[in-house]
Every structure is written in C-alpha cells, then in structure tokens.
C-alpha cells in the first residue's frame, strides 16, 4: 500500500464524518433570518409529510456573508429571510440559483417573486400607520405623505429610520416621488417625531397607549401578536388603544413587503430544497406560515386567519416591484443620515 492510497483512505474516512453532517440522505439545510419559533411549526409539518429532515441555523445578520465565504462547499440549501433586502443582496452576490417550478409560479403572484426564479416571497406584510383611538379621528390621516404635515408635530413615534422595514417604506417613497421630495418628506416626519427613534414596532404602539405620541409606523403583524397575547395581557390593552390605518387606499395602495426564500447556488440537497419551497407555497403551509405570525399569505385564495379578517379585511396593496424598492434602499439609507433622522 503506497502512501497515497493510505492517505486517500484516511481522508475518505474523515470525509465520511464531515459528510454525514451535511449531505445525509433526506434533509434540507436552512440558513434562516427568521426566528426559529416562527418557522418550526411549518417545518415540522413538512417533515411529517415528506420524511425529509430540516436543519436550521438562525442568525439576525451575516448569513449571506457566511454563505459567500463557504462557497461551493456550503452545506446550506435554502435561505429564509424576513425582508426583501437580504434577498436582493443574495442575488447581487450571485449566491442563488434559479428554480423553474410550475407549482411555485402558480402559487406565487409574479410581483412577489424574481422573474428568473432566484427568490420567492412566502408571506407579505403591510407597513401601516397605527393611530390613537382617543386622539386621532378616523379619516384624519389616510396617506404616508401626511406624516410630514406640521399638524402632527411632536405626535409621531417610530423605530430607527435605518431598520429594513422603514428603509423599505422610504425606498418606495423614492420610487414614487424621487429623492429630493422624499428627503423633504423625511425632514417633515423627523420634525414631527415625539422622541428619538427607538425600540421595535410594538414599542411604538405601547407609546401611543401611554400617551407619548398619537401616530406610529408599524408592520401589520405586530397588531395580531399584541391583541392575542394572553401571556402579557397589557399588550392587548396597547393594541386596543389604536386604530389601524391602511395608508394610500385612494391612490397607489399600502406599502407591502415580503418574507421570502432563495435556493442557494451550490445547494447539496437541491431537490429536497425545491420540495420544501413548493410545500411552503402550498395552501396548508401558506395558512400555517402566515397565521403563526399574523402575516398575509402570498398565495391567492388562501384563507386568512379569522383575526386578520376581523381587523384588517381586504385592502389595496401598492404593487411596486420589490426589485425596484430594493434598488432604492441604499439611497433611502443615505437620506436617513442626511436628515439626521435617528438623532
């Protein structure tokens, strides 16, 4: 036995150990920006139905970079994101591969997926205005543009202008009105803030219930999470102190964004990953996935949860393409700095 073949055997044995960890028979490896407790129920359902195991690494940031550095040997098959910009970034870094699937094309409307199939939206959320029941009359505010109106001086709360959710909204303003006007608008909103941007969307609703401010920006699902929170009943009170305003119903519609998924370029379990993608876009998973976090299913005709029907109903959505929104995010971030939004 020469030294080479000896070495080869040794490597093969070691490799076996490494390999079992990453490409075992039936599994999908997921890098997830979404919190595990949100996605576990759907993934468990998938395993139950197909026998394919799912393995997850969850992190709030940096998974794109991890995937990029790991290159062709990366064990990851799918990336699940909680916003559009991470999907755009994956595409820009050439870390995805296109998926051709009739199921996905049928289930997901064109505006919520990449033309070439590099990423797919799975749920949608609306960026709403939360308005105090006591201090803001219904109909007093109906458009994002009005947030810059001096009548709201000292009455608006929001999270950091740099948060992806706000950047996405600001990027859509740039798409509709151009940079110069958006900057003016941001200056107006900034001048109306009751306090320095802080906390998450939930904290702003709390601030409204405490009388710190009268209006806030927030994603639709925060409302569902609060109004059903029996463990922290005070959150139900916060939710009850506000009306939900779906802005711009008379014109372009309310700003929407997605949580989504993309198949990685070097996915070792490609077929299983596509199965999971298709499953996630199917009727049952769409209901579960959306309901767990009170989001809207992307698949047309999926029943919405009772709660969403009760409080939100049907509304007009801004159908601006996600790709276009994504392209304005860096500019939005720059404007936020220029107007000193967060200081």
């Amino acid at each position: 036995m020469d030294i080479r073949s000896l070495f080869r055997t040794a490597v093969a044995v070691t490799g076996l150990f490494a390999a079992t960890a990453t490409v075992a028979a039936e599994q999908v490896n997921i890098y997830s920006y979404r919190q595990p407790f949100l996605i576990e129920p759907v993934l468990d359902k998938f395993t139950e139905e197909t026998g394919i195991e799912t393995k997850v690494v969850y992190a709030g940031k940096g998974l794109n970079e991890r995937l990029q550095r790991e290159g062709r040997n990366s064990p990851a098959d799918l990336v699940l994101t909680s916003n559009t910009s991470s999907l755009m970034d994956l595409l820009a870094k050439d870390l995805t591969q296109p998926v051709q699937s009739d199921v996905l094309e049928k289930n997901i409307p064109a505006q919520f997926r990449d033309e070439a199939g590099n990423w797919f939206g799975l749920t949608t959320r609306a960026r709403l205005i939360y308005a105090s029941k006591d201090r803001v009359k219904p109909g007093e505010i109906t458009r994002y543009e009005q947030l810059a109106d001096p009548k709201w001086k000292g009455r608006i709360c929001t999270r950091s202008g740099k948060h992806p959710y706000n950047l996405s909204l600001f990027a859509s303003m740039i798409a509709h009105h151009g940079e110069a006007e958006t900057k003016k608008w941001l200056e107006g909103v900034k001048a109306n803030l009751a306090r320095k941007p802080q906390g998450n969307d939930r904290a702003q609703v709390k601030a409204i219930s405490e009388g710190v401010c009268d209006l806030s920006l927030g994603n639709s699902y925060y409302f569902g999470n609060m109004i059903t929170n029996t463990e922290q009943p005070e959150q139900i009170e916060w939710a009850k102190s506000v009306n939900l305003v779906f802005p711009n119903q008379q014109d372009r519609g309310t700003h929407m964004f997605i949580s989504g998924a993309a198949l990685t370029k070097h996915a070792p379990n490609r077929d299983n990953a596509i199965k999971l993608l298709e499953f996630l876009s199917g009727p049952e998973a769409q209901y579960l996935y959306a309901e767990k976090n009170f989001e809207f299913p992307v698949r047309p005709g999926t029943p919405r949860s009772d709660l969403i029907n009760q409080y939100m109903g049907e509304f007009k959505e801004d159908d601006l393409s996600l790709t276009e929104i994504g392209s304005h995010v860096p500019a939005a971030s720059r404007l936020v700095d220029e107007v000193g939004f967060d200081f």
Partner: protein
Amino acid sequence: MTPVFSPSRRRSSGLRWILPVSTIALLVALPVLSIFWLALFPEENIWPHLLDTVLFHYISATLVLAFGVGLFTLLAGVGSAWLVTMCRFPGRRFFEWALLLPFAVPAYVIAYVYTDLLEYAGPVQKLLRDWFGWQTSRDYWFPEIRSMGGAIAMLSLVLYPYVYMLARAAFIEQCGSIRAASRSLGCTPWQSFVRVSLPMARPAIAVGLSLVLMETLNDFGTVDFFAVRTLSVGIYDTWLSRGNLGGAAQIACSTLVFVVLLIALERMGRARQRHFVQSPSRSRDSYRLRGWRAALASACCGLLLLCGFGVPLLVLGGYALANFASYWTDDFFTIALNSLLLSATAALITALLGLLLAYGKRLYPVRLVKSLVGFAKLGYAMPGAVMAIGVLIPLAAFDNALDAWLRAQFDISIGLLLSGSVFAIVFAYTARFLAVSAGAIESSLDKVTPSMDRASRSLGRNSWQTLWAVHLPLVRAGLLSGALVVFVDCMKELPATLLLRPFGFDTLATYIYQFASDEMLERSALGALMIVLVGLLPVILLSRSMGRRSGEAQAELIESEAPAL
C-alpha cells in the same frame, strides 16, 4: 522594559520561543487581520458621506459612553476592591466574591430588565402614579431609561467587575511592608492609598479599564436597544443597509486605532514605573471600619450588588417562575451543556495561550512578538458580528483550499472541515477573548521580579521548568481570574456564536436571543436566568479560592526559594 536575559543568552535560545509564540499570536490575530484586509476593498468610499452627516454624532456618542462607563467602573471597581481587600466591615468576606456576580449578567439582559422596570408602563412609575395621582407622562418628569445615561448605567453595572477583579488581585499581591512603611512615614490611610497602593496597582487597573472600554466599544445590543448611536451602530448600518462590508470594516479598524492610542497613552504614562513583588504580605494589614464608615462601606458594596445582580435576578426569576411550565423544554439541558462545554474549553485554551504569549513576551520582548501579541488582543474591541466575519474568512478559505487540493490530488471532496463546526466557535471565542486572559496574566507576571527568573535559570532550570515551578504559582491569581472572566464572557457571547454555529446547535445565549431580539423579555427570562446561574458557579468557586490561596502560595514559594537566592 528590562530584558530578563542578556542579549547573548537571548540569541542562543530565542528562536525556540519567538517562533511558536509568534505563530500562535498570528493565528489568533487572523480574524482581526481579515477585517483589515476587508477594509481595503470597500464598495464605495463611505467617509465623505459619514463626515457630512452622522460621523460626528457617532464619535461623540462613543466618546461620551466610553468616558461615562470608564469613570463609573473605575470608581466602583477600584473603590470596592480597596474596601474588601484592605478594610474590615460587616459583610466583607461575602462581598469579596459576591461583587463579581453582576459580571454573570449579560449587558443586553440587564438592559431589558431595567427598561421593563423603569419605563412608563413599568411597576416603578405605576407605583409613583398611584401614589401621587398623576394621570399621564405629561404630569411628571422621570428619567428616560432608554438614553445615554441609561446605557452608561447598564454597561457600568455589569462591567465594573473587570476593574474590581484585577484591582483586587493587584492589592492582594502588593507587599504590605511598603504600605506599612508609608504609614510609618506619616501617611494617612487615604494618602497611603493614593500615593502608594494606587500607583502600584495601576498596571492592573489599566488592564481592567481597557477591557471595560473595549467591551463598551464592541457593544451593539445595549446601545441599539437604548437608541444610543455609537460607532458600532454605524458599522452595522454601513454593512447591512448600505451593503458595504468593506466600509464597515474601515470604521471598525478606525475604532481599533482609537483603542491602540488609548493603550499607548496609558503605557507612556507609566513608562518609567516598574515594581515587583519583593516580599509577601503575609498578614494583610487592614483598617477596621466602625460606625457610619462601616455602614457606608457595606451600603456601597451592597448597592452595587443589588443593582447589578439582585434586581435582574429577581425580575428574571419572577418571569421564569410565572411561566415555567410553558417555557421549560427538555432541550434546556442540552443547550446549557453546550454553553458550559464551549465556554470551559475556550476558557482553558485562552488561559493556556494567554500564559504562553505573556511568558514569551516576557522572555523575549522583541518588537515582532510584542506587536503580534498586541494585535492578537485587539479582537476584543471589535463588534462581535464583524469579528465573526473575520473568523469566517480564514476558516472558509482554509477549508475550501484543502477541499480543492484533495479534489485535485485524490478526487475526494470533504466539504467544509472547520467552518460551521464547533471549532469555529471556539476559535472565535479565543480570538475575541484572548485580551482578557493575556491581560490578566501579563499584569500578574509584570510584578514578578526578573531576578527570580535569573535565579531559577542559574540553578539549572530551563525556561519551561522556570515557568512551571516559579511563575505559575506566582501568577495563579491572574491566570485563574483571566480564565474565569473568559468563561463568563463566553457564556454570554452572542453575535459570533449565532453566526458561526453548526445546524441545530444552540447555546443559552442564542436560544434566548430569538425571543429577546423581539423584545419579549418574558419568554427569554428562563434562558437568561440559566446563563446567570451557570455563569455563577465558576465565579463563586474560583473567586473563593483565588483570594487567599494565591497569597499563601506566593508566601510559601518565596520562603522556600528565598534561601537559594
């Protein structure tokens, strides 16, 4: 620094030490070097934009935060260390180890806890409103917890133990006779403290303080939660919302320059000072405090302990108990075990490497070794997630190169060997926390007079035997406290663990993060409580053995060795 050996001696056996020490330092410095490398390739030049807009805010917020935290931890850490080491008052023996406890509380957790307590809807303001009949927040003034002041308070409460631990070790290792001499020359206890003890403890205190400041600079969770926009907020923003990782790396590297300057300034300040332990303080001279002084001493220590540890423990315990049944999962055992094993491994490795590097630097203080060791320690000042990217780069590059080579040579693919494994996490911990253990060991080692080395070597021991028989017992306190701090730091470490871990792998910190990141304190309470409790064990065990025994060991050693000198 006076070299331990004459130049001729150094040349003969130098390579044996310089080479391995430089290699280790270089390996540990790889993540920081990777970030410097990244900084060479920004997507676009961010500086004009930053200068025009927010850079001034970032820098001023960073400076105010660092100054506030530095001042408070210095007062609290040195003051309490002096009290428990040199004075006798009720509860001293308890405070001696208990004052370390706040260290087991992660900064982001204490921030959540106090926000919960002190914000408008919290119990404190509710009680005040009930008492005084106020209706809304417009009826009264109450300090805003989510503010610069709040951030300074929170970080200080959990970081002062760094200064406390190192200052205390320094006070213990100081020889009592110098203080006694100062007293007999007419110094009051206060003058003796300010003019003798404090300057002698200065290197150790400086190490503690620099750890505090680096930790303050790398913090993101707390400042982000409190809407204090420091440079680390700028780093993440440039990386994530501007898609400019290189630019983010540039900001991170500039922060490091600031740290290096600070350290250099401190070094220059005590360039001519050098002091060694000449004889042991066998019996500690202590001032017995009576009356209001004793009460004040107990109250000060008690307050630190209460705010930094008692209150968080009670709040977390309350939440955990209230929802125990719904939040307890059997996975907790595995998760806690993961945390424990990872942290213990990292603490051990970091202590060993720290000792090697510090000793190597002592034997051969040549420029190469000194600057590499210094570089390796900078990882501590980097924000965790940036550091994690710095770990990813060399590991993934190594893995992919190995795999490509094997494919080419043997047609075998092994995939990724190190990245995405537990090794990556341990490596990240080592690279992040080496500063802690090396710093603690260096400050202990610096106090050992080189004549000990020379005596031991002239008696025929080689450098390893000298390390084992002479230095190890003398720096035991520093070594232990370094390992202890690294252990607790690893228990709390979040951003690097989160990003580098294998599939399905959780530590206590990553487990609670999925809830805490959404400001759901109640659901993360049980896990947070476990971090505190598991982190507590070694704090108690080690700190109890640390104090007295190191003094004894030192005394014994010097007695048995002294006649030979």
